[in-house]
């Protein structure tokens, strides 16, 4: 079986790093732009994320997740760290306002997205609307809990509950769907 890009990077194959940048550059850049206060900050974040990818490539296990999911996990960890740091250093209001300028996430999965992503969007539809809303504002727009509470009028404690319940339900649904036999595209 052919080695994945990350396995090749872990083995020191520098051609794989170029291929990795080509393949996942768009994903990482898109995430970084959405979850960073400025373009310059997004550029710095992307560089840090790729360094994280090179350093953690050997930890990738193909049997546990798709490669793109692993890359997105590393990207999010770095972006959340940076966002948290920015919020500590600056007044978070401008960052959050900018985050909200992005339109809502697509409600129908793109035709070419990976299987795990397709499963996730299908499972989102099974959540209660307030759980879905909280997850969307946090994951897609990168808003902190207090801002979600202000924006939606939901008490802070309830925001936390919706976030937790929503994510746990999403995970359970994804695990269940992963066990089902595949019939072409993800059933919805």
């Amino acid at each position, binding site marked *: 079986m052919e080695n994945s890009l990350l396995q090749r990077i872990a083995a*020191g*194959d*520098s*051609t794989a*790093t*170029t291929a990795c*940048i080509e393949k996942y*550059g*768009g*994903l*990482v*850049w*898109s*995430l970084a*732009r959405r979850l960073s206060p400025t373009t310059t900050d997004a*550029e710095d974040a*992307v*560089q840090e994320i*790729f*360094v994280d990818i*090179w350093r953690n490539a050997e930890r990738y296990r193909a049997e*546990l*997740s798709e490669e*793109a*999911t*692993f890359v*997105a*996990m590393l*990207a*999010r960890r770095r972006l*959340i*760290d940076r966002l*948290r740091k920015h919020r500590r250093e600056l007044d978070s209001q401008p960052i959050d306002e900018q985050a909200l300028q992005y339109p809502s*996430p*697509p409600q129908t999965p*793109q035709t*070419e*997205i*990976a299987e*795990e*992503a*397709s*499963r*996730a*969007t299908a499972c*989102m539809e099974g959540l209660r609307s307030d759980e879905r809303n909280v*997850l969307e504002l*946090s*994951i*897609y727009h990168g808003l*902190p809990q207090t801002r979600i509470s202000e924006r939606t009028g939901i008490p802070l404690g309830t925001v*936390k509950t919706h*976030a*937790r319940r929503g*994510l*746990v339900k*999403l*995970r359970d649904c*994804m*695990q269940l769907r992963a066990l089902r036999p595949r019939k072409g595209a993800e059933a919805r």
Partner: protein
Amino acid sequence: MSNNSNEESDRWEELQVTRLLFGLSPEEQSEFDELARQPARMTDASLEKAVASLDMAWTDHPSEHLPEHLKQAILARAEQELASKRAGSVERPSRSEDPQSNASRREASQYWPWLVSAACLAFALFSWWSSTVRDVPQPDLAQRRAQLLAADNDHLHVDWSSGPTPVEGASGDVVWSNRQQQGYMRFRGLPINKPTEEQYQLWIFDKNQSEATPIDGGVFNISSTGETIVPIDAKLKVEQPYLFAVTIEKPGGVVVSSRERLPLLAEVK
């Protein structure tokens, strides 16, 4: 299960979700670390996977592309990172979790003084040998190549393609900085040569030079079919290079190549 442990489990899940979606405050991080130290307490990777899957689904990455300057900067950092990784792997053999390997490490430790002396001697011999033969101490060259890429945004970067006498499976690239008059060739799959029988030679075709007399870019050896980086040793100033060519020549190289054996070309477009 007691109420207390249920509460702890709930709190642990809550902290994991908060960490993934919002990041933890310093107080929450301390609490997280403390709970994480408890036996059998593990972070739930499936929660993180669910969030990452949504990230992918909600990201329109096929239509988003990295800016070119950012891509080049990341490539340069990748070179540095891989170079230090390679250097690290030379210094530190990979560790195994196998307890047997711990025992063998303890046994080996009694020989360390001898091993260190032998390594020093080997290093001294290698330093002497590498100063006489232009083969490649890899980590250093990879770092220097990366530094060149990062230092000069106007550098040339072209891939090798097959020449008139191709070698199957050979690939790589050339980077060259006119400003710094430095460059590096990178090869994978180029056959190992016997320096006493033949050597590789680089030729740089420059618009300011006759096509018949390209600039000699140096003679070099390939000692591994894995990735090899070779510095360019241009004998004249390179101003407007349009083609790099690798020929196979007699030991020591030639002044004018017959170009009978020309496995690789890199054309600047």
